[in-house]
């Protein structure tokens, strides 16, 4: 039998799941961007000779890029369990990584600034979604009859 008003009764539940899904997707998008950036970076350096003294710097940069991608992926997977900590940590991590990058190479602060702003906005949206999810869950727990 079809519901009389399809899914009307589960509006709150759906909204919560939507918030959570949105936060999770945001983190996966950032992880994907990080991996794509890492792959492009790898191809660039594979196709040109690297001086011996710069090799360690390049390998460290690659490790940081892929490590950050992995961190975002793990945070995305953990979002359903710890929504707010994961999203906040992701944004903090992203901002800090770029700040560290800017210390090593000040010119990098403005490189890809549009993409950086987009990612920051996406992560802020993820935090808002996580907060909304927690809020809804608390409301739900406070009034179990709802």
């Amino acid at each position, binding site marked *: 039998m079809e519901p009389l*008003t399809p899914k009307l009764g589960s509006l709150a539940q759906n909204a919560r799941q939507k918030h959570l899904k949105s936060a999770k997707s945001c983190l996966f998008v950032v992880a994907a961007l990080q991996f794509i950036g890492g792959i492009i970076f790898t191809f660039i350096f594979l196709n040109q000779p690297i001086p011996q003294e710069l090799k360690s710097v390049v390998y460290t940069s690659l490790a940081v890029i892929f490590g950050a991608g992995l961190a975002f992926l793990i945070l995305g997977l953990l979002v359903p369990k710890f929504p707010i900590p994961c999203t906040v940590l992701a944004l903090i991590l992203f901002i800090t990584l770029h700040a560290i990058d800017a210390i090593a190479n000040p010119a990098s602060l403005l490189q890809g600034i549009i993409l950086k702003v987009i990612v920051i906005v996406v992560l802020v949206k993820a935090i808002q979604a996580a907060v909304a999810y927690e809020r809804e869950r608390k409301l739900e727990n406070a009034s179990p009859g709802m």
Partner: protein
Amino acid sequence: MDSSFDFDVPSSNPEGYRPSGDAAPLKCWRCFLLNKSTALQCEFCDAPFDTSNLAPIAEEEIACWRCQKSNRVSLARCGYCDARLIQEEHHRERRENTQWKHGIVAMVGHYAVALLILLVGGWSLAFGVHRAGENDEAMFRKMLPILVTTDLLFLGLAVISYVHLAKECTQPPGRSALAAWLCAAPMLAIILGINYGYHWLLEQAFHVEGIKYPFWGSDLWPWTIALVCIQPAVAEEIFFRQVVLGTLRKHMSFHGAVWLSAMIFALAHLGGILSIPTLMLAGALFGYVRAATGSLVLPMLLHFTHNLVVVMFF
């Protein structure tokens, strides 16, 4: 059914009650999907509807502002259209919700501004990885104006953040202040021991040395005390243990908030990224002490002592 109520719901589901003569659908208490008003169990999840409690309940009714149908006063949402029954309540909750979002996002925004300020400090201290043989005192003297400016800016930011997020970052009073005061010194000694061992290992493994701030026999020692011991103890404690920890505690578990704030505190030390693991431990200690005492005095004292010992002996 002949009862004045023509539907069946468990007593734990007050929303399921409908006025007599109204063939409103019955919302399942488990899956929230709508069923026929005469259903004995949910069509979708098979949850049973309690048929034992069908006596009419005399209670004041309220008309839903959206669909105009009557509901019991105790209900939070309309049983027919799911609207919140009292608009004022709805708006209040929306306002609170916005404040929540505002608090945590604003906190991260303030952190980003703090990073921008600390970036300058990081540039001036050459990333925290010091080349052996370089003259630290000369470098410190050269960078002094930049360090003073960034420290003052960060202090200003901490105060602005505290004022701006005062409501969002209030924390409950501490409940074990005496224990915290008694345990603080030994815990700090352990953290400093770990810190020393970790940096000794770094020196052995990677041949990197931390910056040695001018202290013994230098005329710059008052500046070192002011910029490396006093300013971080005050500004960082206000920012990380009050603003950041206070905001996070409203959104997550206590331990989660303490450790996340400790991680944020450690990541903010752009001038010494190799020290992040030990800084995180120190940040967690300060966070627990802040929560236990309910004030910033002891964390500030511990932070000052920690930095003083590092400057003097490491």
